């Protein structure tokens, strides 16, 4: 059973599902059979997006721009997919909390939105986009609830293993079961949120009008600009304004909380107070902390068994697959320890097996998934290093204390700086080059995230126990702060690109109406969040509306 439940099997199932459905769609073409294949294609892509959302985070498939863009591309409607994804990408980032809270399922939501947009019957008229957006938001809420349910199921499974001591349920099995359920969540979301309702709607429309019931055989909406997809109705404009407000809040929040960046610029860093966050103060003298120990400085390392790094990448990438409400990443780290045990021999293997045993019956563990790479490197160092540093504490303490300590830095680096910057850059590119924005997001995301994880691994493998004292050097400590500060200008750049590509010249009155609704959206949004934002949002909306109307008077715009 464990082999059957390999994490590779879950991932492979999703890939095969997408490939088979795409081939069927290509073979059948449009029409009833082709539309069924299209549904299956979306369901299979939804399964992969769901798996990425729960476990394979570095691949950014679950980012709305990518999920919707690829979803659109799979059915030959890339531009509409990207524009839908762009709308949802604007909405979610400002609402995403730092610190590991459960988030709305933005990726599944984007795919659901694209499916609704492309498959709604023509009778929907100009409400196609708002209805798709509404379905997406509902799907996001459902996805979060489903995530909570799956985390509960993972916890039940782990508790049962603890109680029964089932030998077959290794850490790998637990992870694989979680990954398989993530795939199932994607398929279920597809069935619930677009397959059944849209087929029923299509059949109903066909019965009443006598038109063929084919799902996606109509002409494309013919969008030339992202604004063509947005009718000037209140609901859509308000949602967009709310989203823009969220992004501005994100920019302000990042600016305020990034701390280190300004402190460095202003020369105020380097407090002399003991332990005042200057990083290494108070740590140098701690015996046994190896970041700056002779072994690390001399570059003495390795003697790792060949292939150990390659074998640990899959457990690391799927660490979150077994995340449980009760034990958090315990099964993921147990899987890691088991893999280390399999790749070692002699005392190293015995230590790794002992660690896996400790984790199996131990308490909860958690850190940022990226920081887990540093912890894995450190474990390899401690287990296999030539010097064989004798651990003064149980190895589980390395994961417990190191995980908690590194989580702050990694949360800020990955979720507070790196990922938002990537998303914002892709959003700025999307209105002018839709395909390039999706490709750059995927390539940049995978490259950067895997690159940083790789660097963290290498550092962990040098530092050993020293990982718990944090990254050495001022540069690495303040880098996330600088990344956060970059968000504000990139958000402004994205806004400028949006305005520049808004198609003002085609329908000035519609744009004035949109901006008026933006103001009301901002009013509602600010009352729901922070009153202090109210005046800024109002002024922004009033200025743009006035500018739009003024531009029309002397005939500046056609």
């Amino acid at each position, binding site marked *: 059973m464990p082999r059957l439940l390999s994490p590779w099997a879950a991932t492979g199932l999703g890939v095969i599902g997408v490939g088979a459905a795409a081939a069927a769609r290509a073979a059948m073409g449009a029409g009833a059979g082709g539309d069924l294949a299209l549904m299956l294609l979306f369901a299979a892509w939804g399964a992969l997006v769901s798996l990425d959302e729960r476990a394979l985070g570095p691949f950014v498939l679950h980012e709305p721009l990518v999920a919707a863009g690829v979803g659109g591309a799979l059915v030959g409607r890339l531009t509409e997919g990207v524009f839908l994804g762009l709308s949802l990408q604007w909405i979610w980032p400002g609402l995403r909390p730092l610190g590991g809270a459960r988030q709305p399922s933005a990726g599944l939501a984007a795919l659901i939105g694209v499916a609704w947009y492309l498959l709604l019957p023509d009778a929907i008229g100009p409400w196609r986009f708002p209805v798709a957006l509404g379905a997406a938001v509902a799907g996001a809420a459902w996805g979060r609830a489903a995530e909570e349910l799956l985390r509960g199921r993972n916890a039940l499974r782990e508790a049962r293993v603890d109680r029964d001591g089932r030998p077959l349920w290794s850490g790998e099995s637990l992870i694989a079961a979680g990954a398989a359920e993530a795939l199932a969540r994607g398929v279920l979301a597809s069935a619930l949120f677009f397959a059944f309702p849209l087929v029923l709607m299509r059949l109903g429309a066909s019965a009443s009008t006598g038109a063929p019931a084919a799902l996606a055989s109509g002409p494309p909406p013919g969008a030339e600009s992202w604004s063509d997809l947005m009718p000037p109705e209140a609901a859509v404009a308000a949602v967009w304004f709310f989203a823009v407000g969220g992004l501005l809040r994100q920019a302000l*929040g990042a600016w305020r909380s990034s701390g280190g960046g300004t402190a460095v610029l202003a020369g105020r860093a380097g407090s002399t107070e003991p332990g005042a966050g200057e990083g290494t103060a108070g740590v140098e003298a701690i015996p046994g902390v190896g970041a700056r120990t002779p072994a690390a400085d001399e570059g003495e390392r390795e003697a790792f068994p060949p292939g150990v790094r390659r074998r640990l990448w899959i457990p690391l990438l799927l660490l979150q697959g077994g995340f449980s409400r009760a034990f958090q990443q315990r099964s993921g780290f147990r899987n890691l320890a088991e893999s280390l045990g399999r790749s070692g021999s002699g005392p190293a293997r015995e230590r790794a097996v002992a660690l896996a045993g400790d984790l199996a019956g131990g308490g909860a563990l958690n850190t940022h998934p990226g920081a887990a790479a540093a912890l894995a490197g450190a474990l390899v160092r401690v287990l296999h290093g030539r010097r064989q540093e004798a651990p003064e504490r149980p190895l589980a303490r390395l994961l417990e204390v190191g995980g908690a300590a590194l989580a702050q830095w990694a949360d800020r680096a990955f979720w507070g700086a790196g990922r938002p910057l990537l998303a914002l850059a892709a959003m700025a590119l999307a209105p002018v080059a839709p395909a390039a924005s999706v490709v750059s997001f995927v390539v940049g995301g995978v490259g950067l995230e895997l690159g940083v994880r790789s660097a963290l691994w290498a550092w962990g493998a040098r530092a050993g126990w020293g990982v718990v004292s944090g990254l050495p050097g001022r540069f690495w400590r303040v880098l996330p702060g600088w990344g956060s500060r970059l968000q504000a200008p990139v958000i402004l750049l994205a806004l400028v690109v949006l305005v520049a590509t808004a198609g003002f010249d085609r329908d000035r009155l519609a744009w004035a109406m949109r901006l008026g609704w933006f103001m009301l959206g901002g009013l509602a949004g600010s009352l729901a969040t922070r009153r202090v934002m109210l005046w800024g949002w109002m002024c922004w909306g009033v200025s743009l509306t006035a500018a739009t109307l003024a531009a029309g008077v002397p005939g500046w715009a056609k």
Partner: protein
Amino acid sequence: MSFLLIRVDDRLLHGQVALGWGALLHPRIYLLADDRVAADAWELGAYRAMAPEGTRVECRGPAALGREWGGLPDREGTVVLFRGLSELALALEAGFEPGGAINLGGIHASPGSQEILPFLHLTREQSGILKTLLARGHDLFAQELPGGARYGSVRLGEILGGLRSQSGGEEAGGGGAGRKR
């Protein structure tokens, strides 16, 4: 003068505390009220090294905190972190006066524990401590992150009183009240 935040969290200082609550409250001091950390320079150094810039980390045992809290500087800029309910009870017994509500932010699974909320798993002993604290009139609320579901003293009392049904938070979201692991 009350503390900025008093929180019970078995991971003490980590991302949810430093970034989730820290971004909202802007503390200047994180005070770890924990005997294990106080006795282990290695562990205290780890927490100090990874604390957000502009903050500092201090440590006292719970009993010492109970005796010395009145003389602590900058209490209004301090987040106090306890590893568990027994540590909190120890500090209270020793004279610690919270001066405000106490946040239950994360007590995860341990042998024999029962899931009270998704982020609160209590053993029978811990449930007893919590009931006692509530009965003595301490103001407690369970909340993982700012913006998350908040469960006040009354709701916590109801859950501990044996409520077995699904329940939502007082503000938003949902939780699994009283599910047995």
